[in-house]
């Protein structure tokens, strides 16, 4: 298993481990536990945004709306209709995905900035529906006493630590799905669309259908995040579905790193932490946060995780170049001709340290840094 030697995977596992251990440190502090758990719910929705924005390159601004639909479905069904949490959660997630798919049918007829504006409009319509349709959603009085998940006598989900672990496990599944997508041909399909729709089309990618499914998948994650959020906080109001929420998610993913596996989680936790830190400033906290985010976008446009990933690639490459020189396998590539001159080694494993390809053109180093994040080669290591 070369996977355990991959610094990216080690880093992701380390982040997950730290978060898994937070109840040990803060288990008695209900407020802190709740802030962290709410953060994890947001992170799940941000993983949805990662699929449509990070992988597919389409700026969807409907994610806050999908989050709200998930939250209100669980909220209303468990209170006014007295369903169990699990039934309501299932309906919420399936319903959000279906609404995502249907709105995608229209939204994806538009492109680029028009798509962003259109999806923002979808998000706004969802918000308006929730905040004005008083007979169903109670509008600004919100939904009280949303149920905790039922578990018989096995565990008690009203305990913040138990609830934390439920959300954490579902988040783990989302992280894994992101990882699996990214290293599969599905992820490659989405990344080709992000790079060039025309070229993707020319190599046989069904661009329309792929975007459609990616958009539905982003709604799916939004629904999961929202449904859990409703149960974690117990009370929800229309602010669970605002467009502000979408931009919050967007900030999380920008800070963490678009198109990366760990980025959404890292970004969400860090920005949530900063929010809490500057809470005394209330609305003015953005005066402090704004410059921090601008600095990040300027100095680490690929987010924190993308930035660290660059270091990892650089180091791996230097090691490869170093060991190739030591083995004396460096060879000139000045002639690049003729059919079938391919060297017969052909063990193109990513972890093959003596790969002669890396040895002769150190000039490619800077450019290659950006490559690893764009289309993954992880398939090779199996």
């Amino acid at each position, binding site marked *: 298993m070369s996977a355990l030697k991959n610094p990216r995977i080690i880093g992701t596992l380390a982040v997950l481990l730290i978060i898994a251990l937070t109840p040990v440190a803060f288990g008695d502090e209900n407020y802190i536990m709740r802030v962290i758990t709410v953060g994890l719910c947001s992170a799940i929705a941000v993983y949805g945004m990662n699929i449509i924005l990070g992988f597919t390159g389409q700026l969807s601004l409907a994610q806050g709306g999908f989050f709200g639909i998930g939250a209100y479905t669980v909220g209303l069904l468990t209170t006014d209709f007295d369903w169990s949490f699990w039934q309501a959660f299932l309906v919420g997630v399936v319903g959000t995905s279906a609404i995502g798919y249907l709105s995608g049918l229209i939204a994806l007829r538009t492109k680029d900035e028009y798509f962003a504006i259109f999806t923002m409009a979808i998000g706004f319509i969802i918000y308006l529906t929730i905040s004005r349709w008083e007979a169903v959603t109670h509008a600004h009085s919100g939904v009280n006493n949303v149920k905790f998940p039922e578990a018989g006598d096995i565990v008690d989900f009203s305990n913040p630590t138990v609830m934390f672990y439920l959300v954490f496990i579902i988040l783990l599944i989302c992280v*894994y*799905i992101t990882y*699996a*997508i990214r*290293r*599969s*041909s*599905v*992820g*490659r*399909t989405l990344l*080709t669309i992000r*790079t*060039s729709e*025309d*070229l*993707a*089309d*020319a*190599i*046989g*990618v*069904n*661009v329309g259908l792929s975007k459609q*499914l990616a958009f539905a*998948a982003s709604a799916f994650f939004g629904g999961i995040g929202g449904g859990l959020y409703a149960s974690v906080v117990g009370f929800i109001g229309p602010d669970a579905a605002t467009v502000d929420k979408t931009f919050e998610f967007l900030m999380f993913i920008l800070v963490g790193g678009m198109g990366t596996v760990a980025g959404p989680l890292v970004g969400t936790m860090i920005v949530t932490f900063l929010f809490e830190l500057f809470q005394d400033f209330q609305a003015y906290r953005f005066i402090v946060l704004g410059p921090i985010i601008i600095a990040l976008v300027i100095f680490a446009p690929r987010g924190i995780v993308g930035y660290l990933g660059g270091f990892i690639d650089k180091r791996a490459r230097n090691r490869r170049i170093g060991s190739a020189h030591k083995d004396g396998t460096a060879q000139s*590539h000045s002639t*690049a*001709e*003729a*059919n*079938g*001159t*391919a*060297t017969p080694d*052909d063990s*193109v494993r990513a972890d093959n340290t003596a*790969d002669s*390809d*890396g040895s002769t*053109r150190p*000039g*490619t180093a800077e*450019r*290659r840094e*950006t*490559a690893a994040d*764009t*289309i993954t*080669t992880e*398939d*090779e290591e*199996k």
Partner: protein
Amino acid sequence: MLLEIRGLGKRFGGLDAVKNVDLDVQEGQITAVIGPNGAGKSTLFNLIHGFYRPTAGTVSFNGRDITQSSPHSSVNGGIARTFQTTHLFDDSTLLENVLAGRIVRSKSNVFDAIFHTPRHRRESALNHDKALEALEFCGVAEFRHDLASNVPQEVQKRTAVAMALATEPELMLLDEPAGGIPEEETTDFGNLIRSLPSRGVSVLLVEHKMSMIMDLADTILVLDHGQKLAIGSPAEIQSNPDVIRAYLGSTKDEEN
């Protein structure tokens, strides 16, 4: 007949970019389309491949009507193409580029990826082997870990062919595949194109380098102002007075 084009036309506003073109592409052959700039060669390709919808005529491939089909279903049906300006995923390695060409032949879906099914593993390995084989066939396997933007123009052109090959086509549309390649390297590149039919890939080719065309093509279609001027073997075309007047006589070997 592999590809049959009948009465194909495309009007942009009042302008006939392509008008009433008939063309047969035989299996195992290299067919070339030549003509002065603006003669409608690239438009013809875009019509065949589905980027444009024809305003008249039909295209059938292996006896199936594909006149209205979209590019991705054309690729799925066995028609690959390369572009005039080389189109690659610049910030990916050559291997990743060619792997992208395998997407259309991949059956495993997101659930296979999530549950890491045997089908997913088998397919990943197969895709990798096929991609590498395509790179080797095109003679650029040694550059596989280099970024597409960092390799010489000729390697990029060869990679574009490898990417098209990875989709397992029966017919490949090559739009000026040797454009931008230094004169002394075109012979090598011509050899690559010539070896395609032996893999079961027939070729339809647009090219400006006349020496290369005359050397490679079995059949040549000459377009002028979107219409067929002549069709025949290289020898017939070279001696056709209409062609000489419209094209060869004035612009011979001067381009690129």
